[in-house]
């Protein structure tokens, strides 16, 4: 099977639409964020969610885990979290007189790494190694992680006291950095009504989510996304965008080749989500901000001038010529 036929595309898209609709039962508004998380899932990659507290980052991940009958684990990152708390460890069992390996919470399908920047670098590294290799070495034995495996890490951009910002090389491991913004007034009103009406406490209603698919279906969807066709000109366009970040004066460090790879992988998922079996320049452009914003470093001059990564990337996207006839 080299390309997707129409029937497969329709099937995959309808499944994705069903997932999307299910997630939107509890995530009011934030449709772009929901789509980007699904793109991350389709690309079999990890995403970093950034937003101030109270925007539903954790809720989104919980809801996503509920939609498929996979395993879900959550790690609340704290300054005293050790690598063994994430990946597991061996302890001596007095009864059997042997070392017993206890697997950590990383052995799951969907892992929520809450406030990842609160743990020190060594703990972050342990998780990021698992993210890259899809396996964990415990007592010299390589243990593969279950499939599908996806890490959804969250971080809070405002509280920087006592945090350990992820280094650029580690940020690069995330396919997308999704920025969650405040909902608009109408969405916020609908959200408040949904949570407070006929509801005790502050339950956000994850129970309302039904399980639609299993891990095998997720793998099929990921395979379908991998088969989405990318035309040579569209691929060139993605590479041109990434290369432009290296030549732009506003960035002191541009995106590496992994940026081009991420852009095309994410665009495949975006195309499938739109019900297409081929990628268009629009898909590349749509996904460029989340795929590249954490791979570039803004220059101090541009920062002083009040520019942000997103603003510079947006103007760069307007200036890179799109494929023409």
């Amino acid at each position, binding site marked *: 099977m080299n390309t997707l036929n129409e029937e497969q595309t329709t099937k995959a898209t309808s499944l994705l639409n069903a997932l999307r609709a299910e997630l939107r039962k509890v995530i009011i508004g934030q449709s772009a964020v929901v789509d980007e998380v699904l793109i991350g899932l389709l690309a079999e990659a990890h995403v970093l969610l950034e937003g101030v507290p109270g925007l539903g980052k954790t809720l989104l991940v919980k809801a996503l885990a509920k939609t498929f009958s996979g395993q879900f684990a959550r790690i609340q990152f704290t300054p005293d979290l050790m690598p063994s708390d994430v990946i597991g460890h061996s302890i001596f069992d007095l009864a059997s007189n042997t070392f017993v390996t206890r697997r950590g919470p990383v052995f799951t399908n969907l892992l929520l790494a809450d406030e990842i920047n609160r743990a020190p670098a060594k703990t972050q590294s342990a998780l990021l190694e698992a993210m890259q290799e899809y396996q964990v070495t415990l007592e010299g034995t390589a243990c593969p992680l279950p499939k599908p495996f996806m890490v959804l890490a969250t971080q809070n951009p405002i509280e920087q006291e006592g945090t350990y910002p992820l280094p650029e090389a580690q940020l690069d491991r995330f396919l997308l950095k999704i920025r969650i913004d405040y909902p608009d007034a109408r969405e916020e009103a609908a959200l408040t009504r949904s949570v407070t009406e006929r509801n005790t406490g502050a339950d956000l209603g994850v129970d309302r989510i039904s399980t639609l698919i299993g891990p095998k279906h997720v793998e099929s969807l990921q395979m379908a996304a991998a088969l989405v*066709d990318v*035309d040579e*000109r*569209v691929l060139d366009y993605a590479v041109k965008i990434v290369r432009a970040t290296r030549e732009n004066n506003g960035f002191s460090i541009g995106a590496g080749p992994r940026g081009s790879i991420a852009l095309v992988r994410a665009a495949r998922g975006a195309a499938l989500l739109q019900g*297409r*079996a*081929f*990628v*268009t*320049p*629009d898909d*590349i*452009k*749509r996904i460029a901000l989340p795929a590249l914003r954490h791979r570039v470093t803004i220059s101090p001059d541009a920062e*002083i001038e009040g520019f942000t990564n997103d603003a510079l990337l947006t103007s760069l*996207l*307007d*200036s*890179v*010529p*799109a*494929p*023409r*006839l």
Partner: protein
Amino acid sequence: MQLDRIELNLRRRHPWEAIDLGLVMLRQWHKPVYLAWLSTFIAFAALTSAVLWQWPMLVMFIVWWLKPLFDRILLKVFAEATFGAPPSIRDVWRALPGLIGHTGLFSALTFRRFNPHRSFDLPIWQLEGQRGKGARNRRRVLSRKTAGYAFWLTFVCTHFIVIFEFGLVGLVSFLTPGDGIDDPSLFGMFFGDAELWQLHLFNVAWLVAETIVEPFYIAAGFSLYINRRSDLEGWDIEVAFRRMAAQHAHRGEFSTAPRRAGAISLLILACLPALLTITLASTPAMAQEASPPAISASPAPPSPQPPSGRIKKTAETIVADPVFGREVEELSWQPKKKENKETSEAMPPWIERLAKVADWLAFGLRGIVYAALAVGAVALMLLLYRNRHRFVRTGGVSNKAPSTLFGLDLRPDALPDNIPAAAHAELDAGRVTAALSLLYRGALVSLIEHHGIEFAEGDTEGNCLSRVKGRIAPNAVQYFGELLDAWTHAAYAAEPPAKNTASDLCQRWATHFSERKSAA
């Protein structure tokens, strides 16, 4: 003011940012600045030290007291470099008599020696040539929002000089063989038992500290001053208008319409000072205080700095011009309040009531008229904004489309005269993608030429569609969407539409888009 020659990027800046600009200025023109500084200040300090070798403290005091003179030299270098012509050492020495005689040096060395805004006030004295009441008024206007920053600049720079000086002395002290940190030999001057060489070392450390900090202090004061004037007088706007006028003038070489646009810009540019003058004239304080220096402050490089008297004379001539506002004494008869009261008391009550009603009526009507005017003005602006593309088209700007736009070849010979017929011919030849490409290109050219829609270099198909929405008829938008959908399938998925679908697109093309004007 030759603003088109200014080397700085003028824009609205916070005063702290303006101070930061001073550092950038020093970095940019460090060579002429330090050459001027070393050839005057350091030379003078060395000479004084040689003459008064036995009294190093006196040397330090004299040089320190005369610092405002050397500040003037630094400001001259910065001011002329700002307009693209930094002076040479020879120019500086030649200008020295003028700087001593016509820049208010006497007051700066006497009762203004401890002025906490020294570097910020210096341009008013030196570049604008203002004196007495004029200078005071000018200073009041300029320092209204900046005085605090100028004070802190002086405060911080003074401390930095002391820190650098003692740091250097401390460094030498720590590296001198002896009892180390407890050795008070170099700080002995405070106890009156320092040796002569140690006092000279102190002077050298102080000179080094001054050399590091003083040029920055003057540059930052000058950049604060420039920023404040740019704020008050809209220099950045003027520069932008000049640039627009230059661009339009440049385009005018190729077509007549842009020449017209350039002429409009120039007209606006020409009217701007008049408009500003009207605004300023309505506020006499601003007119008198802000306008004259706008012309006289030009350092006018590379010619030697004009004597302050001439600047003053020019400023007075400009202020005397009625356009810049004048003091007019008007005498008119006013009824006394008491008499007024008596008259009103004399009125019958029904007339008083009637007058009151008329007053209220007038007040209400006035309010309605003002509100209607405001609503009308907003509506007019909204209408103009919504239909701006019509004006662009009637103005003839888009009658002649550029030859290439965002990678598409839009020259008349690049597209056939009859696009649907040519597309049909491609279809008949079995080249569906080529036919769609032709329709797409033709549609874009028509949108640019006839609807004045602008597309950016990086616009994708989706962006093109969203730009078109609301600018053309809904059914044309729908057709354009269908065309783009067919095109993306053909171009990026190698799935061209069925021949009859493509043929239908060819037939409907002419309903929504017209041919090129040149071809028609």
